[in-house]
């Protein structure tokens, strides 16, 4: 690529990235959407997410037990690179003035502590991915909590928040399980720490 062509390439990329990402439709589309939601063919958000949360908690708790059993047999990883900062677990609350179950919080805290111990054993790329995933979850949770502050008790927002908590537990449990056998995460396993 010639210097001139390279310059044009970069300008094209800048022009593309500079285009407005948001274009407002020429009419309000919400009435049509609301009508379809009212038609009854579309089901609303449901409360069963509490049951799913309990299931995730069970999986997470069992991984804690497994890890505690094998912990004493897992050798420390030599020459592990210094860890990139990984966000700690987000404080779990269910909107202003509400708190999650103490057992849930305790299990979550244990998972977070274990994650902090294990993070040094992860390849730098996996640590970076993990940090990005947890940061994204925390950002989403903050957004939902802010919306809940405006509309306390809204079932849709509560369900979204619960999903975020589940996702965080899932990420932490996943990482902990991947490190349980030999205290490290290989490149194949690190790819399983999915976004």
């Amino acid at each position: 690529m010639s210097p001139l062509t390279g310059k044009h390439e970069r300008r094209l990329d800048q022009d593309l990235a500079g285009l407005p990402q948001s274009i407002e439709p020429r009419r309000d589309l919400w009435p049509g959407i609301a009508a379809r939601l009212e038609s009854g063919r579309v089901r609303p958000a449901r409360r069963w997410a509490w049951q799913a949360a309990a299931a995730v908690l069970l999986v997470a708790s069992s991984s804690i037990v497994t890890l505690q059993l094998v912990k004493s047999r897992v050798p420390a990883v030599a020459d592990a690179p210094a860890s990139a900062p990984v966000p700690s677990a987000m404080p779990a609350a269910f909107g202003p003035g509400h708190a999650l179950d103490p057992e849930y919080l305790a299990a979550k805290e244990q998972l977070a502590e274990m994650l902090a111990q294990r993070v040094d054993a992860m390849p730098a790329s996996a640590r970076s991915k993990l940090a990005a995933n947890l940061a994204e979850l925390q950002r989403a949770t903050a957004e939902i909590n802010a919306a809940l502050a405006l509309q306390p008790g809204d079932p849709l927002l509560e369900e979204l928040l619960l999903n975020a908590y589940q996702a965080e537990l899932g990420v932490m449990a996943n990482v902990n399980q991947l490190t349980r056998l030999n205290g490290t995460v290989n490149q194949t396993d690190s790819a399983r720490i999915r976004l």
Partner: protein
Amino acid sequence: MQGSKTAFEELYREHVGRVYGLCLRMTSDHALAEDLTQETFVQAWRNLPRFEARSSFGTWLHRIAVNTVLGQARRRSELLGDTGTIEQQLGDVLADEAAGEPGSTRDLEAAIAGLPPGARYVLVLAGVYGYSHEETSAMLGVAVGTCKAQLHRARKLLRQRLGEPQEQP
């Protein structure tokens, strides 16, 4: 239920521009983009319990929008055969949309709208909305290599249409 809809309408108001922008750039058709935007939000409502916050809500909506656009394109292709010519005939739609913008923006929107669908989809997702090759390929259901090749093709076609110097072989 009503409270949920109120909250969902707030989400709609916040995200509709980015969803509609994506649909419009992928289809080059205002009326179709409006239909697909509505369908995207209806699908989002249906699938809200599956939203796991592994990505932002906006990215999740974009994934649904891309699926909706691709599904519609497949159905239209089955009905009408190859729609490449039709797509190119619609190439001035976004130029009209950008009529109040500076000349370069207007030209660029028109050039994007005139791209063949495959190249346009990749360029819009990766070039305009900043998704990585991996994210773009996952959204479109193609290999990363295909995504890179389509982006290279799209940029080459864009430079041709914008009258810029071409890469030497």
